[in-house]
C-alpha cells in the first residue's frame, strides 16, 4: 500500500458534527503542531447552524511557512458518518483516513490507508456521564494523532493544563481522554504513518491567532474607548475580542470601573450612529460588521463623510450578495465600501493581510480617521478574521503617539479671531474641529448632513456647496499620501509582468511567487494595502505592460476601482477571480497566470 511520506508538510482535515465540541479539540491539535515549531494555518469550515450539521477543520502544516489553503488532503480525521462520502473523495492517494471504528466500515478505496479507532467504545468504557462520553471523543483522536505523527504528548498535556487553569477538576478527565487515544495508537499503529511532525524552530517570533482577535486588541492599543456593534458572522468575534481585552486591560485601578463602553446595538444602523456620535464627541469609537451591515450603514457613512466625523468601521467580509454564504469567505464588499452611500462619496479603506497587520492597521485606522476626519473602513474577510494564523508577534513602540488630528483646545480658541469648522486653513483639505463643551463662547457649531458653508452654516447656495465638495476631493488626495503604501515583493521592478493582490490572498500569493520563480517566470508583485491608491501604486502599474489582479470576488471590484480612479488602460489589467467562498490557493493563481500567458484557458474554473 502506498503511503504519503512527509515531514512537517501536510494537510490534515477533520470532519465533525457541528456542536459536538470538536472545534476546541481540533484547535488544540493545531496549536500542538505550532508548539512543535512548525507554522500551521487551521481553517474552520462551518455551516450556518448551531448543531448537528457537518463541519470541517482543515489544518495545513508547513515548515516553509506557506499558510494559504492547499488542495488535496493527506490525513482525514473522519468523525462524521454523514460526510464520509465527501471526505473520502478529497483524500489523496496514499493518504490516511482515521475514523471511529466502533462501527466498522468499508470505504471502498484501495489506495488509501484506513486507521480505525473505536472512539465511542473507548469513551463509553471510560466515562459515565453521557455528555462527557460525547465530548471526550474529540480529545481521543487528538491523542491518537499525537502518537501517529510522533509528536511530543507533553505538549498537549500542557495545553490542557493551560486551558483549564482555574477549573482544575476538568484537567484530569481531559488528559485521560487524550491518553486513551494516544495509547490506542501506540498499541495499534506504532510507526504506521509516514507523515511526521518533527520539532523545529520555525515559529520563533510567531503567534497563532485570528485577525479578529488581533484587530480587537489593536482597537485597545489604538485608544478606542467605544464600540457599538450588532452580532453578525464573521465579525462578531472582533467586537468580542475588544471587549475581552478591555475587560483585562482597561479596568480603572481603585474603582474597578471601565475605561471603555461596549454596547450591543439594536441593529447596524444604530451601531454606526453610536460610533459616529462617540467620535463626534472626541472619543475613539468603532463598529464591526459584515456585508449586510455595510449596506444598512451606508446612509450614516455618507453623513460621516460629508459632515467630516471620524469613524472606524471593520467589515469582515463574507460570501455575498445578500445573506449569501455567511460562513464562507470573499472580498466582495470593495465597491460597497469605497463608494458607500448615495451622492458623490469616496472612503478610505485599509486592507490588512494577516493578523499582525490587523493589529497594526486597527491602530492606524484611528489615527487616520482622526487625522482625516472621515470614515475609515478596515476590510478584512472571514478567512483572515475567524481563522487562526501563524503570524508575527504583535509589536508596539512606546514612543509612538496617537495622532488625534486637528482639534482645537480652549487655549487655541482663545487665541483665534474666528473659527470656521470647514475652512481649509492648511491647504490639505482637512479643516479644524472642536469637541463639544470645549469653550464657553467659541468653537460651537452645527454638525449636519445638509449643505453647509465653511462656517458650518446651512446654505442652499450651490456654489458654496460645490466648494465644500471640491475640498473633500482635495482631502481625498491628502488621504492617498497618508494611507499605508503598497508592499512590493522586489526592491525594483525587473519584469514587464506584474501581479497585484491584497488582503488574505497574501499567504497563497507568496507560495505562487515562489512557484513561478521555480518555473523561471520573472514577475513583480505588489500588495495593495489601502484605498485611495498612492503614487507607488500608479507607478507600479505604469511600469508594467501586463498586470494580473487577483481578487476573491466575481466582478473584479479592485480592478474597477483602479480603472475608475486611475485611468488605467483596461486591457493591461487581467483579472484572476475566485468566488466560491473558499480561500484562494497558490496553485489556482499559478494555473490562471500560466494559462493566460500560454493562451490556454486554465483547467480550474
Amino acid at each position: 500500500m502506498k503511503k504519503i511520506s512527509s515531514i512537517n508538510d501536510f494537510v490534515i482535515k477533520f470532519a465533525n458534527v457541528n456542536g459536538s465540541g470538536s472545534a476546541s479539540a481540533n484547535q488544540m491539535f493545531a496549536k500542538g503542531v505550532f508548539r512543535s515549531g512548525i507554522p500551521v494555518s487551521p481553517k474552520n469550515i462551518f455551516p450556518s447552524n448551531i448543531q448537528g450539521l457537518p463541519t470541517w477543520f482543515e489544518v495545513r502544516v508547513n515548515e516553509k511557512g506557506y499558510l494559504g489553503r492547499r488542495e488535496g488532503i493527506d490525513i482525514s480525521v473522519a468523525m462524521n458518518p454523514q460526510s464520509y462520502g465527501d471526505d473520502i473523495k478529497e483524500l489523496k492517494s496514499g493518504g490516511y483516513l482515521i475514523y471511529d471504528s466502533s462501527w466498522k466500515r468499508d470505504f471502498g478505496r484501495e489506495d488509501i490507508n484506513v486507521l480505525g479507532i473505536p472512539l465511542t467504545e473507548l469513551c463509553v468504557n471510560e466515562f459515565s456521564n453521557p455528555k462527557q462520553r460525547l465530548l471526550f471523543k474529540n480529545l481521543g483522536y487528538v491523542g491518537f494523532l499525537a502518537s501517529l505523527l510522533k509528536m511530543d504528548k507533553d505538549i498537549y498535556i500542557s495545553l490542557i493544563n493551560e486551558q483549564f487553569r482555574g477549573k482544575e477538576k476538568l484537567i484530569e478527565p481531559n488528559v485521560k481522554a487524550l491518553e486513551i487515544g494516544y495509547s490506542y495508537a501506540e498499541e495499534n499503529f506504532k510507526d504506521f504513518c509516514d507523515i511526521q511532525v518533527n520539532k523545529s524552530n520555525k515559529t520563533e517570533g510567531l503567534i497563532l491567532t485570528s485577525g479578529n482577535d488581533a484587530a480587537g486588541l489593536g482597537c485597545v492599543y489604538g485608544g478606542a474607548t467605544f464600540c457599538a456593534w450588532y452580532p453578525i458572522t464573521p465579525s462578531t468575534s472582533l467586537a468580542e475580542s475588544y471587549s475581552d481585552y478591555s475587560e483585562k486591560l482597561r479596568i480603572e485601578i481603585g474603582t474597578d470601573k471601565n475605561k471603555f463602553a461596549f454596547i450591543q446595538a439594536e441593529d447596524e444602523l444604530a451601531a454606526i450612529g453610536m460610533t459616529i456620535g462617540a467620535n463626534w464627541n472626541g472619543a475613539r469609537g468603532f463598529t464591526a460588521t459584515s456585508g449586510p451591515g455595510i449596506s444598512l450603514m451606508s446612509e450614516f457613512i455618507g453623513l460621516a463623510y460629508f459632515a467630516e466625523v471620524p469613524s472606524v468601521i471593520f467589515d469582515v467580509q463574507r460570501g455575498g450578495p445578500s445573506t449569501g454564504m455567511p460562513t464562507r469567505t470573499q472580498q466582495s464588499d470593495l465597491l460597497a465600501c469605497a463608494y458607500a452611500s448615495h451622492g458623490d462619496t469616496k472612503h478610505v479603506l485599509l486592507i490588512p493581510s494577516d493578523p499582525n497587520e490587523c493589529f497594526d492597521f486597527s491602530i492606524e485606522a484611528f489615527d487616520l480617521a482622526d487625522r482625516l476626519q472621515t470614515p475609515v473602513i478596515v476590510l478584512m474577510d472571514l478567512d483572515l478574521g475567524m481563522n487562526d494564523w501563524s503570524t508575527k508577534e504583535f509589536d508596539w513602540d512606546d514612543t509612538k503617539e496617537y495622532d488625534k488630528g486637528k482639534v482645537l483646545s480652549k487655549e487655541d480658541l482663545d487665541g483665534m479671531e474666528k473659527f470656521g469648522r470647514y475652512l481649509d486653513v492648511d491647504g490639505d483639505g482637512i479643516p479644524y474641529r472642536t469637541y463639544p463643551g470645549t469653550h464657553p463662547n467659541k468653537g460651537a457649531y452645527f454638525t449636519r448632513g445638509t449643505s453647509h458653508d465653511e462656517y458650518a452654516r446651512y446654505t442652499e447656495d450651490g456654489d458654496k456647496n460645490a466648494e465644500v465638495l471640491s475640498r473633500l476631493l482635495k482631502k481625498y488626495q491628502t488621504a492617498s499620501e497618508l494611507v499605508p503604501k503598497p508592499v512590493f515583493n522586489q526592491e525594483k521592478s525587473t519584469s514587464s509582468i506584474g501581479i497585484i493582490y491584497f488582503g488574505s490572498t497574501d499567504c497563497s500569493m507568496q507560495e505562487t511567487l515562489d512557484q513561478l520563480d521555480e518555473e523561471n517566470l520573472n514577475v513583480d508583485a505588489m500588495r495593495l494595502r489601502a484605498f485611495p491608491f498612492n503614487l507607488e501604486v500608479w507607478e507600479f502599474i505604469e511600469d508594467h505592460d501586463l498586470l494580473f489582479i487577483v481578487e476573491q470576488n466575481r466582478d473584479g471590484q479592485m480592478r474597477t476601482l483602479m480603472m475608475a480612479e486611475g485611468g488605467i488602460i483596461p486591457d493591461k489589467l487581467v483579472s484572476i477571480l475566485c468566488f466560491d467562498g473558499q480561500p484562494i490557493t497558490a496553485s489556482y493563481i499559478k494555473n490562471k497566470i500560466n494559462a493566460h500567458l500560454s493562451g490556454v484557458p486554465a483547467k480550474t474554473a
Partner: protein
Amino acid sequence: MTYITKPINHHPRLESNKLGLTRRDYEGSVSTLCAGCGHDSISAAIVEACFQLNIEAYRVAKLSGIGCSSKAPAYFLNQSHGFNSVHGRMPSIATGAAMANHELLYLGVSGDGDTASIGIGQFIHCARRQLNMTYFVENNGTYGLTKGQFSATNDLESKSKYGDENLFPAIDLPSMAIQLGASFVARSFSGDRDQLVPLIKAAMCHKGFSLLDIISPCVTFNNHNTSTKSYDYIREHNEALSKPDFVPLGKEITTSYEPGESSEVSLHDGSTLSLTKLALDYDPTDKIIAIKKIQESQRDGKVLTGLLYADPSAKDLKEILNITDQPLNTLTQEQLCPGKSALKDINDNLK
C-alpha cells in the same frame, strides 16, 4: 440661510441669572419655521428653562434628526454644539456622544415622524438603555417638512389639510416609554408655558432617559379633526390649486390651566384639542397606574398632560455599564494604551 425673516424675540425683562447671563444669551439663530409654529414655543421654553437652571450653554449638546422639529435646535442655545443627523437616528448619535462624555447635558429634539415612524426602533432602544438625556418629541401628528403627510401619532380618522382621512391608530409614545423602562415621562402642550418650563427643568435635572412628548400644532398642515371654521376659505383654495403652497401667517396658540382641570384649545384650523392636566395628588411613581390613566384618557378622547411617570432613583446607562467617572474622551494615551510591556504576556498566551 442668511435671510432674516422674523425678528428675534426680545424679552422685555432682561434680568440675569446666577451666571450673570440674560435670556438672550440662551437664544439661537432666527427661526425659519412658519410663523406660529408650535416648535418655536418649545424652543422658547427651553431657553427659559436653561436660563432658570443657570445652565452653561456650552456644556449642552443639542441633537436632532430631520424635520421642521429637528431644525429647532438651531433656534436656541447658540453656544452649544449641535448635531442635525439623519432622519430618525438621533438616539444612536446621542448614545455614542453621551458615552464619550457623560458630563454634557444632552437634549435630543425630534418630531413625531422622526420618532414614531422611521425612528421608532432607535427611540425604543434608547429608552430601554436608560440613556441620560432629555428627549423632546415635538408632536404635531404630521410630517411638516415634507408637506403634511400623516404621522404615526396622528389620531385615527382625523383629516389632513387636503381632506384625506387618517386610517390608522395613533402610537402613544409616553406609554410605550414607560413600559420600556424610561424613568421620566411627561406630556405637555407647546402653548402651555406654565406647565412646560417646569417639566423641561425637571427632565433636564433627571438622571436617566426623560421623554417629553409635547403636542406642538403645525400651522400649515394642521392635523386635528376638521371642524371647518375660519381656515376654510384657504383650505378650499388650496385644494383647488394643483400646488397648495399658501401658508397663512399663524399665531402661537397658548393656554393655561390648573392641575386637575381640562382645557379646550382651538387649533389653527379651528378644531379643538382637549387637554387634561394631572391632578396635584397624582402619584407618578407607579407604572401600572400611569399606563392605565393614559389609556383611559385616550379612550375618552382626552390628552393627559403633566408628569406621567418618574423613577428618581433609576440608574442611567453610564452606571449600568459601570463606566469610569472621567469622561472617556478625556482619557489620555497613558490611561488607554497598555503599552509594550503588556504585549509580552499577550503574545506569550498566543503561542
